[in-house]
C-alpha cells in the first residue's frame, strides 16, 4: 500500500499513516524499540504533561483484568518546562511526528502550558480532559460539557496554528454532549476513548486496585463512542479503546474514526502497528476503496443512507 492511500488529515495535520501511538503508551517517544517499524506510525502522542512536575501514584500501578488491564500511573511527569528543555529534543531525534498531551486543573493552567508549547516545533496538542478538576473534586473535566468547553477554549486561544485535539472520557452519561462542547470550543479533532473507571480486588492481599480499564474489554464502549460522536460532530475522530488487531482498527474506521490509536494492545502485541497498517491497506484494496478517508464512518453513512439522509461533510 502506498503512503497516499493510507495517508490521512486530522484537524489540519497530515499524517503518512493513520496509526497513532496514544498517550501513556509510549513514554515521550524517546525510547527506541528495535522491533517497531517507525515508518508505519503516523504520529505519537506523548505521555501527558502537566504544568508542575508530578511524582505519580504509588505501586502497584498496573493490574491484569479480563481481556484488559487497569492502570493508575497518576500522570508521573517532569512538568512542562523540563519536558520542553530535555524531553522534546530527545523525541525529535526519532524523526516522528509528535503530538504533545497536556492536562491542567484549570483554564489558567491549560493556557499556561499551551502557551509555552505553542512556540515549539510540535505537530499537535492533545488535551487530556480526564484528570479531576479543582472545583468539583470527584469529577473530571471530560465528565462535564461545560468544563470541557472552558478548557478547550482556553487551549485553543493559545495554540496558534498547532492543531488541537480534545481527548474525551467514556465515563459519562452522554459522550456526544461533551464532544459537541469540545467541537464548539474549537477542537480540531477528538480522541476517544480514554480508559473506563474500574477496580480490581486482590482477595489474597485484601486490597483494592483503582484505575482505568483499557484493552479489548472496552472495545465495544470505544466503538460505541466513535459511532455516536461521528453523527453528532463534524470534526475528525481518532478512535481507540481495545484495538488489539488489524481487524479491530478496521472496525473503528467503519464506525467513524479517521485514524486509530494504538493503546495497551501494544504491550501484548509488539507487532500491532505493522498489523494494523497492513490490515487497513488490505481492507481498502479488497473493497476497492481508494483512500482511507472514504472508509471512515462507512457504516454510519450506510445507516443514514438507509434513512434517506445526505452524507455529512466533515472537516479534515
Amino acid at each position, binding site marked *: 500500500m502506498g503512503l497516499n492511500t493510507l495517508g490521512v488529515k486530522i484537524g489540519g495535520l497530515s499524517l503518512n499513516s493513520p496509526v497513532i501511538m496514544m498517550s501513556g503508551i509510549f513514554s515521550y517517544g524517546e525510547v527506541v524499540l528495535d522491533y517497531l517499524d517507525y515508518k508505519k506510525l503516523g504520529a505519537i502522542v506523548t505521555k501527558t504533561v502537566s504544568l508542575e512536575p508530578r511524582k505519580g501514584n504509588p505501586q502497584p*500501578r498496573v493490574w491484569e483484568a479480563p481481556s484488559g488491564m487497569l492502570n493508575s500511573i497518576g500522570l508521573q511527569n517532569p512538568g512542562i518546562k523540563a519536558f520542553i528543555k530535555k524531553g522534546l529534543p530527545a523525541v525529535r531525534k526519532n524523526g516522528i511526528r509528535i503530538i504533545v498531551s497536556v492536562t491542567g486543573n484549570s483554564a489558567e493552567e491549560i493556557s499556561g502550558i499551551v502557551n509555552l508549547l505553542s512556540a515549539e516545533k510540535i505537530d499537535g496538542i492533545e488535551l487530556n480532559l480526564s484528570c479531576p478538576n479543582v472545583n468539583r473534586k470527584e469529577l473530571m473535566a471530560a465528565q462535564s460539557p461545560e468544563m470541557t468547553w472552558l478548557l478547550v477554549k482556553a487551549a485553543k486561544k493559545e495554540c496558534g496554528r498547532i492543531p488541537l485535539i480534545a481527548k474525551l472520557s467514556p465515563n459519562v452519561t452522554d459522550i456526544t454532549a461533551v464532544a459537541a462542547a469540545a467541537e464548539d470550543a474549537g477542537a480540531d479533532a477528538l480522541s476517544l476513548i480514554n480508559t473506563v473507571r474500574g477496580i480490581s480486588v486482590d482477595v489474597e492481599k485484601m486490597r483494592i486496585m483503582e484505575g482505568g480499564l483499557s484493552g479489548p474489554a472496552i472495545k465495544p464502549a470505544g466503538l460505541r463512542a466513535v459511532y455516536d460522536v461521528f453523527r453528532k460532530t463534524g470534526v475528525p475522530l481518532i478512535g481507540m479503546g481495545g484495538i488489539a488487531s488489524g481487524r479491530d482498527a478496521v472496525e473503528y474506521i467503519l464506525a467513524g474514526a479517521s485514524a486509530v490509536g494504538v493503546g495497551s494492545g501494544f504491550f501484548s502485541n509488539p507487532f500491532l502497528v505493522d498489523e494494523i497498517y497492513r490490515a487497513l491497506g488490505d481492507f481498502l484494496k479488497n473493497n476497492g476503496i481508494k483512500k482511507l478517508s472514504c472508509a471512515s464512518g462507512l457504516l454510519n453513512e450506510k445507516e443514514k443512507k438507509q434513512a434517506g439522509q445526505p452524507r455529512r461533510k466533515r472537516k479534515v
Partner: protein
Amino acid sequence: MEAKNLTVCRNARLAEHLYLMEFEGAFTPPALPGQFIHIKIDGLFLRRPFSVAGQKNNRLAILYKVVGKGTEILARKKGGETLNAIGPLGKSFPVIKKWKNVYLAGGGTGIAPLIFLADKLSGEDVKITFFYGAKSRGCIGFEILPAGINFVFTTEDGSYGDKGLLDRAVCGFIGKNGRPDVIYGGGPAGLLKKIGRISEDFSVPAFVSLENRMACGTGICYGCVTKIKTGSGWEYMRICKEGPVFNTKDIKWD
C-alpha cells in the same frame, strides 16, 4: 532487544511449585545476568516478566514459581509449544574485575538471575558464596544449582540448612569469614531491604534485582516504578528500564 517466538524444549518441575523452562532460541544481543524477558501467555492480557536464569549456545532458561494464573498456564506448557517473548530487557548486574570475593543471596525464585550470574562468574578467577533461602527443603530447586560453588542454605522451617532467614546467614558468614567485595541479591523485597542494611553496615556495595507488576516491560508505560533516591529527594524510576538491578544505596524503601 527482540520480540520473537521461543520454542519450549523442556518444562520440568524441580520442587514444590518451582519449574524450570528451557527454550530453543536465544536473543540478539544475548542476555546478561540480571536481565529479563517479557512473556506473552495465551488468555492473559499483560505479559509476565521472568529473569533469565541461564543461557548457553542457542538455549535460554527461566526458573519460575507457580503463584497465579499466568504461571499456572506456563506450568502446563509442553515441549514444542511456542511463547512470544520480548528480550533481553533491563539492566544487568554490574560486574567489576577487581571484585574477587562475591556473595550471591537469593530467596525463592530470586535465585534465578543469580544462578545465571554465578554461571558467568565461575569461569573467572572469583570466589563465589551462594546463599539460598527457601521456605523448606521441598521448595529448593537442587537440580539447577551450579557445581563447584559454596552454597549456604537456610529454610524457614529448618528442614534444610540453617533454620531462619537468609540475611542472618549472610551476616553470620561475614562475621566468620570477613567482608566480600560485593553482594548481589534477588528475591522478596523484605530480603533485599535487609541486604541493603548489610551493605551499609559493612560498607560493601550491593546490587539487587527488584520485581513489580509490569505492563510494557520496555520503559514506555511507567507501570513498574520504585522509589529511587535523587539529589533532591526521590523519584519513581522504572524497574524495567533503569532496573531491575539497582544499587541498594539508591533504593528508597517504603
